[in-house]
């Protein structure tokens, strides 16, 4: 088995500072090997997205540690977390989260703007544009480079979102219900692209309700009332 690229130790997350507190994660320990395809499943409100936010460095745990490539990111400053997200992690969200006033190409280029200095890719506007076009081609949307999100279908928007996640050639792709808002045809297309990208060596972690998708994963974690179990 490859070494762990994502690891958590006794991860706790409690929301709320007043008397009413929500214990979203209770001592979560997990290890995800580099290059694996994992799914986190569980019913709504049981902590799936919270776990993804913590391992993606979007939020900080109340207690416990998150390691990415053996670096404890729980202690990193806000700036260093931003750098980590820009260069090591690509996010794909259920509602695509594209910038509505930018074209597909510009959405990808915006992510590249924050990842400049990454040793994985060349900087410079011409290189960035070329790479953004290649990524669009990878997800089969070369003809939509200049289309804005409102000119594309849900499936197409999600594919742009995947291309954006790959903008800085990250090691890890974190996806929160990537097909949750798509019809079955678009879902199939998007999943095909996700599998294709995984085969290039990326570590893919998907938060999903979709049992069929989970069945194809190498590792499946189930989260229930903030507690994690491996199925």
């Amino acid at each position, binding site marked *: 088995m490859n070494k762990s690229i994502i690891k958590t130790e006794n991860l706790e997350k409690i929301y709320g500072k007043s008397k009413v507190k929500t214990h979203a994660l209770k001592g979560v320990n997990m290890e995800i090997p580099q290059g694996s395809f994992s799914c986190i499943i569980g019913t709504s409100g049981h902590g799936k997205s919270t776990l993804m*936010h913590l391992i*993606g460095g*979007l*939020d900080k745990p109340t207690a416990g540690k998150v390691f990415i490539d053996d670096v404890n990111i729980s202690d990193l400053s*806000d*700036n260093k977390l*931003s*750098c980590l*997200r*820009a*260069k090591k992690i690509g*996010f794909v*969200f259920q509602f695509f*989260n*594209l*910038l*509505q*006033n*930018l074209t597909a190409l*510009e959405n990808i*280029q*915006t*992510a*590249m*703007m*924050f*990842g400049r200095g990454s040793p994985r890719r060349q900087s410079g506007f011409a290189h*960035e544009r070329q790479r953004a076009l290649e990524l669009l081609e990878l997800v089969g949307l070369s003809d939509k480079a200049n289309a804005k999100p409102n000119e594309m279908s849900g499936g197409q928007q999600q594919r742009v979102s995947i291309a*954006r996640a790959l*903008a*800085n050639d990250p090691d890890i792709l974190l996806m929160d219900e990537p097909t949750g808002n798509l019809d079955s045809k678009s879902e199939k297309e998007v999943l095909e692209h996700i599998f294709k990208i995984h085969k290039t060596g990326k570590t893919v972690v998907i938060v999903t309700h979709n049992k069929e998708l989970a069945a194809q994963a190498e590792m499946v974690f189930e989260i229930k009332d903030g507690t994690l179990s491996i199925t």
Partner: protein
Amino acid sequence: MNTIKLVCRNLFRRKGRFVFTLLGISIGMASFVALLSLGGSMRGEVTRQAQAMGANFMIMPEDICVFNLIAIVTGETISESLPHEIFERIEVLDGITVIPHLTQKAAVKDVPSVIVGILPEETRSFREWEMEEGEYFAYQDENAVVIGSDFAERRGLNVGDEVTIRNEQFTVKGMLAPNHSNDDMTVFLPLSVAQRLFEKEGVISYMSAKVDDMAKMEQYEAAIVAVANVQVATDEQLLGSVLAILGSVNITLQLVAAVALIAAAFGIINTMMTAVYERRREIGILRAIGGKRRDVFRVFMLESGLYGLFGGIAGVIIGLSAAVFAGEFISQIGANDLLKGASPQAGVDVSVIVTAVLFSLTVSIGAGLYPAWKAAKLTPVEAISYE
């Protein structure tokens, strides 16, 4: 992609809001620029008028009010007056050359105009006038007028035309060569004729004087005060007093404009705060894909700064146009050339433009600080989870 491109896309996304916010700061800046420009023009014009008088000092009624000081410098009529015999007493003093003026206002071709009674020969040599057209007065009591070149042009008058002043007909005998002072907009009559026409027999408004030796100014002043109950002011003192008054007026006007600008700044704060709330999810996206707090801060500050830059430029254009229009308008309705300097011929004051744009930028950047800080303070999760 770069930050400026991203900011411009955001700025022009909601065109209506962009235009109205821009209008707010443009109008604020326009009023500021217009008043600044008019104020600067007034200062310039007053200085120019004072220099064109060609006098070392002025002799005025003792209790002259500040408005009349401005009137003397700008060639307007003054309410106080002096007995003519005072002129005769000062005229005989050694080392002093003095000329009297009787300034009045009357309708010429249905427009209020400044009429000045003078001693023809003495005034011509004192002011070093030259003729543009026609001839100068031939003798002291001649029933004719000599007019300034701008006056002739604006009223459509030529040498030989007849004009009616207070129901009496006069022939335009000559036109003075322009000397870029208030003389260009004035109608001159021999003093005795003016005194009769305006029923001011034995009265003059003020006197201009030159001295043979400037080093003896104090002696001359003492000599004048000894023979007449008058106030003496050198042209520098007079100019200083008038400019001080104008300075106070300018500051007051600029404070009024600053209030308009502050209101516009709150408009920017409002727009930017609305943008922060509306675009929380977008802020979350930028943070999720690697944007730092300072990147978000920069985006919102740049947006705010661009409002200031565009608003400042638009404000300068509108303000200078308004100053030119206002200067011409005031000049025409009041026959008052004080604001003539605001006309396009006077040129555009670059320092006003630079000051205005920098001020607009500063105000808008100041206005953008709080919204930008609010935006940067959002955590990626709270921003991206915003529905």
